[in-house]
């Protein structure tokens, strides 16, 4: 039987087929320049030219666990070079097929080897989390409260209550920063409390880090939560994606960082993950790994890359400011500070399904049913139009109040 189309791709298809000249795509999560174009980072172009000219390179298979310079640099980028677990040899990295692939390998390991069967993610969360974990062998996927629709903020009490009631050994998916889809992150103090609870209830933390650097523009700042857990001595895994922060969406570059309490478990864990990878895809792709691995191990290239990240993060922050300002100026009903309180690529606007339908059908502005918009889809050329249309649908739609 034909399966239902996957929402974000169906949305994109509809956008592409729309002939309305002022159409706006606030759907798929990819960065756009102010001209509304994809951006291949200059350091990436430079690397590709360098790689093409390098006669010593070939297309041989990478090791099963990937390109080691990439994996170790990615783990170091995540945990910070001061990390005790890194210094003590208790942390390791495994190249994976971008963030999704890292989640899948981590989930398969936790299910098959760790014998975990219950996983929690936030409500709402990235649409693919449940599918990844259930297909990886978890038998129960549950949610912990996260988005407070009335306050348009984190439902911290709900989150804590749900985690407190989670059975021991449950795996808890935590968005490291720039929560997808809401853009709402816990404060540092809230993270401390979450860590206390996870420790007390013997839950297993699984971080999903798809936006390190991309959220605030600062790699270290965006890694604060993961590093805090690391400093507390947690065993944990973290799926890392280089799709957004390197703009390497289609090269599928990712890393799975694994932190253990004891370095003696690292080799057995790696050998078991080797078997899982072998049975899935044998070894990961080379091209993107060489780009990221080379940049991360070269101080000059790393600085160049950091400036690109800051460019992207700054543009997004300015669009957040711009949208909020316009909605407040228009006196659009409701409060709009959440747009600048939130962080990263996405914003949970709080728009209800009727408003969303109207935005799409009447105004050719494409966003997901849950009201998530991709800030990258906004630019100086369309922000006035989008603000105006949001104002229009909010004032003319009978929906649960914002």
């Amino acid at each position, binding site marked *: 039987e034909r*399966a239902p189309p996957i929402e974000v791709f169906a949305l994109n298809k509809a956008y592409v087929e729309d002939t309305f000249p002022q159409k706006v795509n606030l759907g798929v999560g990819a960065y756009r320049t102010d001209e509304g174009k994809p951006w*291949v980072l200059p350091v*990436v172009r430079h690397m590709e030219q360098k790689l093409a000219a390098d006669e010593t390179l070939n297309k041989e298979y990478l090791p099963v666990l990937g390109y080691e310079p990439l994996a170790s640099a990615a783990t170091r980028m995540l945990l910070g070079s001061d990390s005790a677990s890194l210094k003590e040899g208790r942390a390791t990295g495994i190249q994976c097929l971008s963030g999704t692939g890292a989640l899948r390998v981590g989930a398969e390991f936790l299910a098959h080897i760790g014998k975990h069967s219950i996983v929690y993610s936030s409500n709402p969360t990235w649409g693919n989390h449940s599918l990844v974990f259930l297909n990886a062998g978890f038998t129960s996927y549950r949610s912990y409260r996260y988005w407070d629709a009335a306050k348009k903020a984190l439902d911290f009490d709900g989150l804590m209550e749900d985690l407190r009631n989670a059975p021991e050994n449950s795996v808890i998916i935590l968005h490291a920063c720039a929560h997808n889809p809401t853009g709402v992150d816990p404060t540092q103090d809230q993270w401390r409390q979450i860590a206390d609870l996870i420790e007390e209830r013997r839950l297993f933390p699984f971080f999903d880090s798809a936006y390190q650097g991309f959220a605030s523009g600062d790699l270290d700042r965006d890694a604060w939560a993961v590093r805090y857990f690391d400093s507390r001595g947690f065993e944990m895994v973290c799926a890392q994606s280089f799709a957004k922060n390197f703009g*390497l969406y*289609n090269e599928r570059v990712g890393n799975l960082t694994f932190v253990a309490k004891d370095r003696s478990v690292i080799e057995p864990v790696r050998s078991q993950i080797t078997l899982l990878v072998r*049975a*899935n895809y044998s070894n990961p792709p*080379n091209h993107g790994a060489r780009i990221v691995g080379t940049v991360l191990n070269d101080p000059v290239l790393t600085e160049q890359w950091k400036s690109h990240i800051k460019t992207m993060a700054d543009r997004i922050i300015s669009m957040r400011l711009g949208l909020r300002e316009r909605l407040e100026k228009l006196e659009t009903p409701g409060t709009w500070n959440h747009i600048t309180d939130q962080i990263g690529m996405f914003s949970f606007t709080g728009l209800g399904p009727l408003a969303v339908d109207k935005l799409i059908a009447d105004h050719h502005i494409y966003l997901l049913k849950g009201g998530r918009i991709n800030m990258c889809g906004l630019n100086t050329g369309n922000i006035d139009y989008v603000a105006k249309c949001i104002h229009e649908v909010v004032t003319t739609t009978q929906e649960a109040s914002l």
Partner: protein
Amino acid sequence: MSLISSLKIFSPSSLNTTQNALSVVSSRANSWWSHVEMGPPDPILGVTEAFKRDTNPKKMNLGVGAYRDDSGKPFILPAVKMAEAEIAKKNMDKEYSPISGSPEFCKATINLALGEDNEWTKNGLNATVQGISGTGSLRIGTAFLSAFFPGGKDLYMPTPTWGNHVPLAKHAGLGVKQYRYYDPKTCGFDFHGALQDIAKIPERSMILLHACAHNPTGVDPKPEQWAEMSKVIKEKKLFPFFDMAYQGFASGDIDKDAAPVRMFLKDGHQIALSQSYAKNMGLYGERAGAFSLICSSKEEAAATMSQLKIIIRPMYSNPPVTGARIATEILTNPSLRSQWLKDVKGMADRIISMRQLLRSNLAKEGSSRDWAHITDQIGMFCFTGMTPPQVEKLTKDFSVYLTKDGRISVAGITSKNVEYLAHAIHQVTK
């Protein structure tokens, strides 16, 4: 707690050591992972590791299945280099591929397998998705069959088969069974054994077939034997799943190598097909491959396509683009395509000539054994027929590295070392 009892002097420094020792012990006890055992060592990797450690200047690595040129070096196909230059000129973006890969790639790939003008693609009967090279394509295929195959969930495989077929199929939730294939007495195809076993397979089961250049034996059925197998498989209502990892690389002729696949379609089978560009385009690390289902209608193709995407998305969302772009550029650009056909024939020819040289050198050495299978077999691998003790001796005395089953990668043979190899093989088998 022997760690503590062994410490007799309780000075501050040893107390520290005690605490450290205790914390090591307790950290293992507190760890989620102290029960995790080392997995079994990878046999082929083990061969390469041992090879690397060997200091004998005459050493040979006949383990790993990757093509080498006559200097023993990895080979980047001229067509690939040209394709990369063309692609660079286009300044393409890095946006997400569709879940199923680029339509252009998928079309070019299935048409490579079935022929440019084939009726199945023309009528929209194929559901084709990009996969992570051959392994990933097999993984998608086995996952699909595990979820949707209406018959028995055992996948019947030839004995022997590629080492990864079994864990891969099991991981996807399929059972694994065998049918006879290799005859160690002749070092050839056990045709009658295969037919007998295939005839005994329960109706509506799945059967895995290596389209060409059987891995690990190098033994392929002859065309008339394929025809017989097709007949029996049809009579028994079995579902054929072809693994084609060597199209073009086996005989040097892409149509000849794909003939069994095309024959089965003409005979009216609906098939599944996994393809890889690792060997025939030398794109090993770029992971370009595809999985296809040939269906009975456009609607079926669309339905199965949608389910294939649902399998892919929770694995890795969408596929890596670089290898696929190279393959597409080569296949759709006429001058690159003809360059590629030359390149792949060159690789196949070199392998064939190494087989001939090995056989003739064994004769020159005075070996009285029948080594005809060396040239009868095809593709990257040769099942020499050597026993494990002979293999061990070959490695120990001559620094020739191969897997215990006597399989050699012919790609590791060059015009400079073939005599040495023949000499060594003769010594251990005479």
